[in-house]
């Protein structure tokens, strides 16, 4: 699946919960399932700026594809990050950089999440793209 196709899947998943409670139950469940983060990377260097809660994001390049690892102290944030990483994990830098810039809106986050949550996701997304940019230059 392309990132674009994936976006639609996520959006539909989101919209299958018309009730805020179910929606958040889903996000929280995802958050609880976020893959463990390597404690070595719990440093300021990997902290994402612009989030209300603490978020760490680490990336490595494996076989030409970017492998992300993330952590947060807030469960809902972890859930949202899980969704983001589902979109971006194991993609090439090029694919990531070409992802639509209005992604947060297209995911339905702006509509279905509180503003500060949507802003937090946007900050993580920015960092995701910065990693991709860095790796694309390393390889160029």
């Amino acid at each position, binding site marked *: 699946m392309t990132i674009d196709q994936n976006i639609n899947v996520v959006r539909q998943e989101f919209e299958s919960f018309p009730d805020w*409670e179910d929606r958040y139950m889903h996000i929280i469940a995802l958050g609880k399932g976020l893959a463990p983060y390597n404690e070595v990377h719990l440093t300021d260097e990997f902290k994402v700026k612009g989030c209300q809660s603490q978020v760490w994001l680490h990336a490595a390049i494996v076989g030409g594809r970017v492998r992300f690892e993330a952590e947060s102290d*807030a469960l809902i944030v972890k859930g949202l990050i899980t969704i983001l990483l589902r979109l971006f994990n194991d993609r090439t830098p090029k694919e990531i950089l070409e992802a639509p810039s209005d992604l947060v809106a297209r995911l339905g986050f702006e509509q279905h*999440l*509180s503003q500060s949550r949507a802003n937090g996701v946007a900050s993580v997304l920015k960092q995701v793209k910065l990693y991709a940019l860095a790796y694309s230059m390393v390889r160029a």
Partner: protein
Amino acid sequence: MSDVGAIVKPTFDAMKLKAEFPILARTVHGNVPLVYLDNAATSQKPRAVIDAITKYYECSNANVHRGGHALGAEATALYEDARSIVASFIGAQPNEIIFTRGTTESINLVAASWSSMMGETLKGCTIVVTEMEHHANIVPWQMACEKTGAVLKVIRVHDDGTLDMEHARELINDTTAFVSVVHVSNTLGVENDVRTICALARSVGALSLVDGAQSIVHHAINVTSLGCDFFVFSGHKLYAPTGIGVLFGRANVLESLPPYQGGGSMILDVTFERTTYNDVPVRFEAGTPNMEGAVGLAAAIRWFTALDLEALRVHEAELSERLLRDLNTIDGMRVFGPQTLHAGIASFVIDGMHAHDLGTLLDEQGVAIRTGHHCTMPLMKRFGVTSTARASIAAYTTHDDLDVLSAALLRSVRLLR
């Protein structure tokens, strides 16, 4: 009141009061009714204040202090009346009241003007604040220290959120030049014994400032009986418009201070060789002031003081107590600050849950509380947290609001567990 001879506890009709605040009738996230419990951040405005703003622009707007025409005289009279109303609200004289943008600017004005006057003489002197200060009462003093070589000293906070008065007595000593303390903590709701602290400051010849950003709404203030040299607050937390605040300074102290900003009104005579400054208070009000803000603040104080304040205090105390009680029924709840009266502010965390997650879920249910560091990062550090959830009440908060909060909290906790 109907039963002659019955003991009548003053009752306060918060429901009725609420109807005076148009915004409180709105909904969020589609059609969820709003329950606004973020009053320590900013208060909503009653119809009376909104109308006063409209009336100002519809009837009397003109630049002040530059005389000449009828409209200008009217605007000036309104602006100076506002100064008098503020003065009598806190037991001061009109010439002791300076209009600023808010608490933050008031403190910056004092810190910058006073430290530039003192200059190098402050080297090695101390400026004393507390561990529970808002950033607005920390950063300006750090800047002053950097400029002058003064040293910042910090009064410790006990585990229960009260101030360590022993430590205060120790820190406020012969080396102390200024003491700046918060009256009511915006994070803990705890009220500090600022009267004693100001007396300590005075006894060692230091100046004192009381940050009244939170206390102005919940306590009757008299600057003379507090014994402070400066008292500061923001209009927007007192049902008044944004962009207006107050700096009270004792007349003879203000007179000794050099100006802060330069421009129109604050001068007597300008030549390129030498400029002489005007008297207090206009010396500290350079440029066109926020006339509308001053008029709106006057309207807010008029509206507020016309309430049955005795009944209001009882109502607020009742709600505060109930708020704490409700919170404490929740498993894993940790409320910061003393378990007694909280001036309508309760900061808390729940075991294993991030405050922001709670805030997000409450928001979905229409309940607006604040989550974060509340601009008191050192206090967060003191208690070993990065953020708390904070619910804070106002005159228009009802028991129904707290019912909604309780139910919404329980629901959120259930989701997060």
